């Protein structure tokens, strides 16, 4: 299955350090030599832990370049990934694979908790011959892992030393260097969970994919289709020189499907379907999947037949799934309290801005950011809501800090940010929200995000409010968005994904969002009529001040976060797939917003193919 790569945000960026006054500055801690990694009992059978411990011990006590600081912090991360993936289209198999890999990432820091070698982007960093990350042996044996860790630690140390001197030189060039600590010292934790072995069950996944996707042959107007089954088991290891040792396992099973077509005027259209569960055994049978795909195909057909939407500004009702998606896109950049990296280059802010990655809430702790009846909570500790599983659940984060339930916004007032071990201008301490994908840099990311209102309206009352607001504005009809688009899931090929991102990337900062299914709702009789071709403009957190009504139909939306390039949350971070994505949920009700601008399609129509599609059956 293809993983869609988001357009590169990576370059050398700079932050003109607009250092906000840190809310809590701890007194500079005394310099620490590396503490010690936790001992591994001789009875432990996991050779991985032994190898990590022994090599870290050697590095901690003896790794040093002459005349240069010893490391003050060492960290080893490993990830065992077992994947079962099957793809089919129109009843034919496209791909089937079963893979096992192990990845490694080593971090070494010099300096101390106040100022260390991390969190700095330099133009010519150290380029080692093998690097501190990569793919390593899957036998879980001792010898090969020690060798790999030895080389990676050596490279990571040399990298840290180079980084540190570049960083110190850079800081000396600033008139006011930042006072925020680089690294928060957390208490060590040990959690060794039993390792999960992959269980693909005895189901014949190729046959199931064929059977389920065959139903799409009944839709002759479709151009293409893709049905992906993606199942993954991950075991994550963390060991650091402070005494934290972690081994956790998790699994995810996903069905993601896309279909596309062209309307009679040439407009390309698509639709998608996704389902996430925690284990392969929990995936629905092919008949159930076929039923869902039939719905997806029918909806796309309706889209094909529907008229173009015209430009519109006014009240818009977002059904709960659409509201969840919109909130995920809008909130991501503003929930993280970690300080962005220092950089020697320039244009960092400009690029983050372009991709909608600038926080709208930084520095606003204690002020009102949402309506007074709204509360926003992120809770990784919950495993279910109203009987539905919450896949964003975890007990200990990727840095070994215990996960905490955080009230971000309390009755409209901003109280907290999500924090990792990287302090920010507002907060110093981690609250156990450091998440990562494929051993990328950890970032504070949401897990299970609850958007709640103290007074909400039932479906009928909300609809009435909608119609009334519409009427009061003098409209004949207003727009209701039932689902938002997710280009990572609705694109069949990388080119389709690139086209899509290219068309909106310029506007993400200004709040451009892509709805998928939109309906005109007529004031006179409440009649619904599907329309196509529109995109939303100017939908940012500021728009949440104009909430006319909040529903009581809180619904769980599960999606995969995909934070690009190591920067916490841009709008694109909400567009991920099971491959490499971070399971996350948003629990949100329907939202009625005012003054929302939806623009219709004003471009050149695309030509239809010269030869019609050949019949599928």
């Amino acid at each position, binding site marked *: 299955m293809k993983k869609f790569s988001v357009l590169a945000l990576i370059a050398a960026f700079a932050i003109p350090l607009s250092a906000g006054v840190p809310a809590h500055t701890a007194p500079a801690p005394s310099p620490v030599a590396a503490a010690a990694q936790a001992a591994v009992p001789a009875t432990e059978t996991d050779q991985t832990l032994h190898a990590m411990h022994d090599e870290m011990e050697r*590095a901690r006590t003896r790794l040093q370049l002459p005349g240069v600081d010893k490391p003050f912090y060492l960290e080893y991360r490993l990830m065992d990934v077992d994947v079962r993936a099957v793809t089919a289209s129109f009843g034919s198999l496209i*791909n089937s694979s079963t*893979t096992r890999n192990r990845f490694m990432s080593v971090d070494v820091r010099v300096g101390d908790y106040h100022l260390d070698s991390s969190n700095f982007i330099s133009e010519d960093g150290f380029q080692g011959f093998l690097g501190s*990350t990569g793919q*390593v042996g899957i036998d879980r044996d*001792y010898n090969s892992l020690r060798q790999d860790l030895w080389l990676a630690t050596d490279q990571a140390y040399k990298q840290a030393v180079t980084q540190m001197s570049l960083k110190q030189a850079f800081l000396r060039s600033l008139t006011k260097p930042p006072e925020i600590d680089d690294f928060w010292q957390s208490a060590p934790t040990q959690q060794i969970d039993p390792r999960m*072995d992959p269980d693909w069950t005895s189901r014949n996944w190729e046959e199931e994919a064929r059977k389920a996707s065959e139903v799409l042959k009944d839709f002759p107007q479709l151009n293409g289709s893709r049905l992906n089954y993606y199942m993954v088991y991950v075991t994550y290891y963390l060991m650091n020189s402070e005494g934290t040792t972690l081994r956790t396992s998790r699994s995810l099973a996903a069905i993601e499907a896309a279909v596309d077509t062209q309307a009679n005027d040439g407009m390309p259209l698509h639709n998608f379907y996704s389902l996430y569960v925690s284990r392969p055994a929990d995936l629905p049978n092919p008949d159930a999947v076929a039923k869902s795909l039939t719905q997806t195909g029918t909806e796309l057909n309706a889209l094909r037949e529907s008229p173009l939407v015209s430009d519109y500004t006014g009240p818009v009702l977002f059904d709960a799934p659409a509201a969840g998606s919109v909130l995920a896109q809008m909130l991501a950049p503003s929930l993280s309290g970690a300080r962005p990296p220092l950089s020697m280059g320039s244009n960092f802010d400009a690029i983050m801005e372009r991709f909608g990655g600038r926080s709208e809430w930084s520095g606003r702790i204690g002020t009102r950011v949402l309506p007074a009846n709204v509360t926003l909570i992120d809770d990784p500790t919950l495993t279910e809501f109203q009987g539905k599983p919450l896949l964003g659940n975890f007990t200990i984060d990727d840095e070994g800090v215990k996960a905490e339930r955080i009230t971000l916004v309390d009755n409209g007032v901003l109280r907290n940010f999500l924090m990792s071990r990287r302090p920010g201008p507002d907060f110093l301490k981690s609250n156990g929200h450091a998440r990562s994908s494929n051993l990328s840099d950890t970032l504070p990311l949401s897990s299970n995000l609850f958007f709640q209102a103290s007074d909400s309206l039932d479906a009928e009352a909300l609809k009435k409010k909608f119609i009334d607001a519409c009427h009061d504005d003098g409209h004949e009809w207003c727009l209701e968005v039932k689902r938002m688009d997710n280009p990572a899931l609705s694109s069949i090929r990388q080119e389709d994904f690139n086209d899509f991102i290219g068309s909106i990337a310029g506007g993400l900062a200004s709040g451009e969002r892509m709805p998928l299914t939109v309906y005109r709702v007529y004031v006179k009789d409440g009649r619904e009529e599907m329309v196509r071709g529109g995109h939303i403009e100017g939908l940012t957190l500021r728009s949440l001040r104009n909430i006319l009504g909040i529903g009581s139909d809180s619904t769980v939306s599960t999606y995969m976060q995909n934070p690009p390039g190591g920067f916490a949350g841009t709008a694109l971070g909400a567009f991920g797939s099971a491959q490499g994505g971070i399971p996350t949920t948003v629990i949100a009700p329907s939202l009625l917003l005012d003054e929302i601008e939806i623009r219709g399609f004003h471009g050149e129509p695309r030509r239809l193919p010269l*030869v019609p599609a050949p019949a599928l059956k």
Partner: protein
Amino acid sequence: MKTKLKIRTLCASAAILITAWVCVAGDRPQPTATPPVLTAMQEELDRSMAGISKSEPPDYFISYTVADRQYSEVSGSNGALLSSGDSRARWLEVQTRVGTYQLDDTHKLGDRQPSWTSPGTTMALDSDIPVLRREIWRETARQYRAATEALIKVQTSQQVQVQTAEGNAPDFSREKSHVSIGPHVDITVDRKPWEERVREYTAAFSKSPAVLNSIATFTALGMNQYQVNTEGTKLAFGQVHYRLELYVQSKAPDGMDINRYANFDWLTPKDAPTDKVVFDRIQTMIAETEALDKAPLVDPYAGPALLTGRAAAVFFHEVFGHRAEGFRQKDINEGQTFTSKVGEQILPEFISIKDDPTAASFHGQMLLGNYAFDDEGVPGENVSLVDHGVLKTFLMSRSPLVTVPESNGHGRRQLGFVPVARQGNLIVSSSRTMTDAQLRQKLIELVKAQGKPFGLLIDDIAGGFTFTGRAQPQAFQVLPLVVYKVFPDGRPDQLVRGVDIVGTPLVSLTKIVATGDTPDIFNGYCGAESGSVPVSAVAPAILISEMEVQKKETSTDKPPILPPPAHDPDGHYPGQNNTAENNSQTKGQQP
């Protein structure tokens, strides 16, 4: 931390994916009924052509190529398994050319670099003909749209920019059609024994403290390729290739990277190298690595040099072979070194060079650049490039030159790239040969005559960078890996390191004074504009009267600070038995 094994390439840049082509000689007879894929391709082609040829601009040529690829890979590093798996995928490439044979949408525009990647798409694996046709239709519509847009740009550019002589060459040659339905090939691989082998091979490397990192990779490739086009060509053929690669990394005390590489290639499982053969090779590689780590650096030097057969083969591939690739003669960005030299003496008169993809082996050893049909459906031809030192012609794809209007079956590509003229089996022969002893004697004579303190003997080479573009100097770099100083006073040869050969191609070729009598073979992968393709080069040892070498660019990164964990006198290491957590690691690999 292994990047996937770095494949040893002969040339600059481009991809790393392994695709290998060798004709299966004498395969099991199988019924040659038309495979469903081919039926779907032909049916959809007929329908497309009927519709599109009436459109504006006219689509004068359509081809469909489907590569059905079965692939197995087992990789190990430092005594452990890195990965083990099988895959099967079909890749569809559709080409719709709009305009005319003389000027079409693929015409290269002025200075603008063309895109070398070929848009393609994955395709269903099953035999449901309507579904296959639907996918072909989708891709045809997409390609036609892109081609019409490209043609508009081409037509505009024609009016605005200067065209060189070769710019007037047609964009597409006219070729005969070919029909050939060959047998289907399959590979069945038992990966289990290979998993054990790669563990053992890399564990053997780890015994040497000089080895920082080692990778062993076994691959098996079974490729069935199908092609139809509107000229009437209809092809189905299959090729199988097995390969084992060994790679070690080390560092000299001054930080210079020392790498050694070896490969084994075979066509049928029974010809796989035995453990004994592989372990012997491993011991040789370890010995070379340890010796190179300790060898002194060489200083810049100009003087006589003797290249052994394998090194000479790479030398010819780089210095001559790439410049004989036809499409470079068309391109105003390229140096066009040889364009005007057809009929002239460019090499000593005792040297002849041909490129022969039809040869499956040379003196009993397989040749990796063997194929029956190139990737444009043209039969591979044995091309005489240099006859007694005189340049005769170029390697051609279907992109013709004014002076060479037809393809000679050298249009090749890695999946995902557009075919261009590439080498196959480059075979150098000589009519002035000497034994190795005589060659060595002659080297010493030249050293004394030129008053040099020593001559060079180059025993192994890696492919280097060849700059043939006009914007860069006409220099080439071939990277010698095993080099000895040869002294005129009879002292033993001394291994040195840090050597790079430099020079301009025309000059160095004219300075060959003698060759050996035993050709040697290099089988490898060449990465260039159309991706990585398997090639071979065959050449005898060559004696060059003057060769210039410079110091190799070295990494400034010091060797690791601590010794390897298994070879650390002060370190704790729990002994030789390498316990894995449980022995059923690799269950669950099969779907």
